[in-house]
């Protein structure tokens, strides 16, 4: 659906995107993660046909988005970061207006239902809350029944309830068989929604893969337990891993959790010690993200 090779974009001296490769398959929900100013929006706007690139190869649905055609526009749906549609039209009218732009639009009422705005369909757009306006944006992106949807930070500025609702909408897009390209700076969003994620920092992709694997590879597993009485931290068999402790609780981050647990528990058994309050925490994408962002920033 999307194929990107060596994409570059400069604004004068500033290199916003410094050679990135991406592949997005049909039916996939792909999350493009990164902090503000990392090059996410620049990249997604090149894919949407809004910006010209400085270099590299890009194909979206087999077409170079630098030369968008009417047929190509029929097949993609776009949610921009901020759109304030005419406040004078109501929800239903706004969607009727957009439905008229497409050859084979979806049913207006069904689409309103899908994004959960059925009760608001007669309300003027100017009176909708931020979250409701965002759902209208999604409905406008869906009205042409596209194969591919671009969602640029769809939940930025949402309260937790509105975010969860928006996630349900994205999940329903997956059920419709749509391919979704999502940019976000929220880790949990990528973890909940995406089949695959790429992390962009400073215009370069620093990690790519399924969200759970990204977490595993990039960040260490956290093992914590209470320091057994009369044992010095230095005496713990930690291999090469470093321990942090406040004198009572020991925290170890390791990339080899199996080996370390095996050695620790074996040692404790043979010394007849208790490793009280032992917990093993799986690394989250959040940890990976922070770690990668910090590394790239150094």
């Amino acid at each position: 659906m999307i194929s990107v090779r060596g994409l570059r974009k400069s604004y004068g001296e500033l290199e916003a995107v410094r050679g990135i490769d991406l592949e997005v398959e049909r039916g996939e929900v792909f999350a493009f993660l990164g902090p503000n100013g990392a090059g996410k929006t620049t990249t997604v706007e090149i894919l949407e046909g809004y910006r010209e690139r400085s270099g590299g190869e890009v194909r979206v649905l087999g077409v170079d988005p630098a030369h968008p055609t009417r047929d190509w526009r029929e097949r993609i749906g776009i949610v921009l970061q901020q759109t304030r549609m005419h406040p004078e039209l109501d929800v239903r009218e706004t969607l009727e207006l957009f439905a008229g732009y497409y050859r084979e639009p979806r049913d207006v009422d069904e689409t309103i239902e899908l994004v959960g705005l059925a009760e608001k369909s007669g309300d003027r757009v100017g009176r909708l809350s931020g979250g409701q306006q965002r759902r209208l944006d999604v409905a406008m992106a869906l009205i042409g029944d596209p194969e591919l949807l671009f969602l640029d930070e769809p939940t930025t500025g949402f309260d937790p309830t509105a975010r969860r609702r928006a996630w349900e909408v994205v999940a329903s897009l997956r059920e419709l068989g749509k391919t979704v390209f999502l940019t976000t700076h929220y880790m949990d969003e990528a973890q909940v929604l995406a089949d695959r994620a790429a992390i962009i920092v400073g215009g370069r992709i620093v990690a790519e893969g399924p969200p759970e694997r990204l977490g595993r590879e990039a960040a260490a597993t956290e093992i914590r337990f209470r320091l057994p009485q009369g044992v010095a931290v230095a005496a713990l068999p930690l291999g090469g891993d470093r321990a942090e402790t406040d004198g009572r609780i020991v925290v170890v981050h390791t990339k080899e959790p199996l080996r370390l647990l095996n050695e620790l528990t074996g040692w404790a058994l043979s010394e007849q010690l208790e490793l009280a309050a032992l917990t093993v925490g799986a690394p989250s994408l959040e940890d990976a993200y922070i770690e990668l962002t910090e590394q790239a920033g150094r």
Partner: protein
Amino acid sequence: MSIVALVVHQFRFDQKTFWRNPASVFFTVLLPVLFLLIFATIFGDDEVESLGVKTTTYYVPGIITLGVVSATLVSLAISLTVDRENGVLKRTRGTPLPSWVFIAGRIGNALVISTLSLIVLAGLGRLVYGVEIPFERLPAVLVTLAVGAASFCCLGIALSAAIPTEQAAPPITNFVVLPLYFLSGVFIPESEIPEGVLSFADIFPIRHFFEAFFTAFSPTTSGAGFEWGDLGIVSLWGLAGFLLALRFFRWTPRAS
């Protein structure tokens, strides 16, 4: 949808948006009516000596000029800037709708409001002040309206490209047109305006549009009422606006 149906579709929603917006209805439709009533009441039955017509007869084509410029240049410059900064233009550009259809819908809206303004103001002039409607010169009235409205549409689209923000749209647009209404004899009878000022106003299209419209409308006119020289200058301005719009009009917000 065929391309014509698509233009009509866009136009229909532009009409809805227009009539539901109190500011656009007030400034574009009601304000010219108010101006006609005020000017005609204040200056009553005076005569504009150099032209040999009553003041009311002078003001009807004058305020129609204002109505047409409001419905085209002013209305488009402001609404397109607002839509650009709110992301409506960018979002629409991301759909299969051809860009020119979007613009055509807006222009169609402006032409319809201009025509409506003409009908309301001419009707009011006839009913309240007994100013004859020049049915025998209808071709000249309609051609002048068409040339003027089309040219001021192009200038309005071009002007929106020069306006940086939504908030700046009304002041900049009014800064462009308000002085010209005064200098061109739309608000003040031209017999009261010094010759030097009029020749300065002659550089700009509002003065020429008013002169062409006055000739087409005034009962003192003999003949068909076409002022081809003035219409030519208005068209040149329109063409300049068209070329500037092609070159500088943008679909994405300036603020981002």
